[in-house]
């Protein structure tokens, strides 16, 4: 039997692709948001909240944050796989990171639609 460990890699192309697609989504979002913010004549609380009151920007923000959480998962997992050798510790860290990212996602929805 091949010695595969549960907290190892998935040996696939999928994560590689997710990392790139999410990067492009975040880069586009960062450029759009920066441009939009700089285009405001006065960037203060009123214009900032007015920007974020549109459902288009809220949805785009949530999409970019979702891309960020997928991207962060793959990145952190790769770092942990490189530096943390014991499979048990690695599994614990992976689970904690995943749970944190899922919580961040729900938090993001609350921030964007609960204001």
């Amino acid at each position, binding site marked *: 039997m091949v010695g595969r460990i549960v907290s190892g890699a998935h040996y696939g192309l999928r994560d590689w692709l997710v990392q*790139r697609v999410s*990067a492009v989504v975040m880069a586009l979002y960062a450029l759009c948001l920066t441009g939009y913010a700089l285009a405001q004549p006065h960037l203060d609380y009123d214009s900032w909240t007015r920007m974020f009151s549109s459902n288009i920007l809220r949805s785009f923000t949530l999409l970019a944050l979702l891309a960020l959480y997928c991207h962060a998962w793959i*990145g*952190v997992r790769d770092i942990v796989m490189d530096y943390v050798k014991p499979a048990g510790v690695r599994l614990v860290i992976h689970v904690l990171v995943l749970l944190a990212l899922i919580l961040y996602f729900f938090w993001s929805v609350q921030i964007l639609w609960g204001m």
Partner: protein
Amino acid sequence: MNNRRPKFLALHQIKLPLPGVVSILHRISGALLFIALPLLLWMLQCSLRSIETYTRLTDALQQPLGKLVLIALLWAFLHHFCAGIRYLAIDLQLASSLGRARSSSRWVLAVSLALTASIGIWLW
């Protein structure tokens, strides 16, 4: 696996080539941004929730410590952004020769530092 292979991990003696420096900084900046995620989300929340939390946030970011944290995260973001664009370009085989890999690494380091410095000066 043969565990008796020779190891050379004298970190102060290993001299990374420029693309290696960009690579390890990509990793460090990514880890930094991940660790800062709750802080960043909290800042977004404060900025949107009410005028009081917005004012408290901007006041905190006026403090020297707040500015330093902001500039550090700004560098991490800009470096990760620029290095990420470079990796996407490499995937498209736009910078895969050694000379181009070196010069694009220099550009990534220079552009992210220059942007951080100019935005940092403007912030300060």
